[in-house]
């Protein structure tokens, strides 16, 4: 018997399932909203469209779309199995639970990354139409995409852990995204460093002050810690998710 490695099997199956899911279709539409806004600005005032992309689109993506995508994809990794009572199929096969969780996490991360990257690229093509030949413009896009992937990695890991820990994790996640992340990032001093968004925004290629209140309230952190902190936090959240998922007893039925 030639054995198939379980992690790629889980990843491939749930990536395919994710592509067909209603949730993904809804998020494709959501990801098109910034594109429509960029198109509108491009038509109304072509000179403003580059700035518009930087200032407003990034706020939409980094403060809304990226965390919301990560929230719904991340928290669904375990919650969907509990709601649909399908977890039993993945836990009565000779596979460690960590392989199941990590396979599903990677599938969710890739789906979210494709949605964000696709939307990003289309927005960029519209906004920077006149300067597509400039290497600097593409370099900026690369940094934006890298920062978005880092944010997705960290947020998705956090919401995966939350989903593994509690059944209705989406509510806690909404509070985190729209409460903690949205408010605490504007607190003075070191408090803002307790948000993921602070580190992500610190990586974005926008001169301080130029982006205005929506982009930066205070001075960004240096680039190296801004990469390392979300990476380390994401790895920690993922480790926690695995730990919880391997040890927690999930009761799929109310009746005995």
């Amino acid at each position, binding site marked *: *018997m030639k054995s198939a490695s379980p992690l790629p099997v889980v990843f491939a199956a749930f990536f395919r399932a994710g592509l067909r899911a209603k949730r993904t279709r809804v998020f494709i539409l959501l990801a098109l909203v910034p594109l429509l806004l960029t198109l509108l600005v491009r038509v109304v005032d072509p000179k403003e469209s580059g700035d518009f992309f930087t200032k407003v689109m990034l706020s939409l993506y980094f403060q809304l779309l990226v965390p919301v995508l990560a929230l719904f994809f991340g928290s669904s990794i375990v919650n969907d199995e509990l709601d649909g009572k399908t977890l039993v199929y993945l836990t009565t096969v000779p596979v460690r639970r960590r392989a199941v969780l990590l396979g599903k996490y990677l599938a969710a991360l890739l789906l979210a990354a494709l949605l964000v990257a696709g939307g990003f690229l289309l927005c960029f093509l519209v906004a920077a139409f006149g300067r597509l030949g400039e290497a600097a413009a593409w370099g900026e896009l690369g940094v934006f995409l890298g920062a978005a992937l880092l944010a997705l990695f960290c947020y998705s890991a956090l919401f995966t852990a939350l989903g593994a820990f509690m059944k209705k994790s989406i509510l806690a996640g909404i509070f985190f995204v729209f409460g903690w992340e949205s408010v605490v990032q504007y607190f003075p001093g070191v408090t803002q460093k307790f948000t993921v968004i602070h580190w992500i925004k610190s990586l974005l290629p926008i001169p301080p002050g130029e982006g205005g209140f929506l982009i930066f309230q205070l001075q960004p952190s240096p680039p190296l810690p801004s990469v390392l902190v979300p990476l380390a936090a994401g790895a920690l959240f993922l480790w926690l998710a695995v730990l919880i998922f391997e040890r927690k007893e999930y009761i799929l039925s109310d009746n*005995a």
Partner: protein
Amino acid sequence: MSTVLRAEKLSKWYGNILGISDINLEVAGGITGLLGPNGAGKSTFLKIAAGQLKPKIGRLTVFGEPVWGNPGLFRRVGFCPEHDSAYNEMSGGAFILLLARLHGFAGAEATERTDKALAAVGLLESRGRAIKAYSFGMRQRLRLASAILHEPEMLLLDEPLRGVDPLWRIRIMQLIKDYGRQGRTVIVSSHILSEIEAMTSEIVLIHQGKIFAKGDIHSIRGLIDSHPHQVSIRCPQPRRLAGQLVAGEFVSGIEFAADGGGLTVRTDQRDRFFSALMPLAAQAGNEITEITSPDDNLQAVFDYLIGK
């Protein structure tokens, strides 16, 4: 025959709700029927045996190994859960193929295993259809396919005949009996005595979380037989079937379903009743789609037995 499953002082409760209490049980090869009304603790016991729940007190071993946190054991164990749950967007074939691959089968072998399991439950033709388009009975059979695809040494089946049409009920019972004959261990739960009885004479009666009786079914058969039974039947022409049934002396009452699609029969002689029903079920025009014993009936049987 050596012990395959051993439960020692096994207890489990959910908050204030008792699941099972102080269960001591040894199961060897062959088929063991776990019989009890809904809420008796059958599913809790099987979920502990399938590593889905942790015991609060006591321990349970399968092939001498603890089950919780021991995924390697599922190379030898198959579990068919009671929930009507599935990845509805997937096709039946994709679902079983995924499980085959997670069982470690790759390439052509995974496909062969998938086809064999689906064929065993009559779903090979429907393998490409999305599970959400399956009927309840088909989904139940799909769950059974998920349990048998790796041909385990031990099968844990939680109400595997629930919602299955009469024809497939007989075929699945045959499949389970074949497993037992091959020397494998099968623990099958039901709240319908006749189902268990058709598969095995070795039963465990479970009631209010405790094992109430264990052993050969014939020892308690007389007691159960003397208790009045209700059998609900779904069919397109209930009045026609009722007319055929009342010809026998074993029917003490008949009630028709309000929707006109079934009837409930009361009988004091269940064996004779089922003997008469089976040939009628095969007759053209009757087309029985479902036979159930209302749960309170079995509850009443247990109360009756406890009273004795």
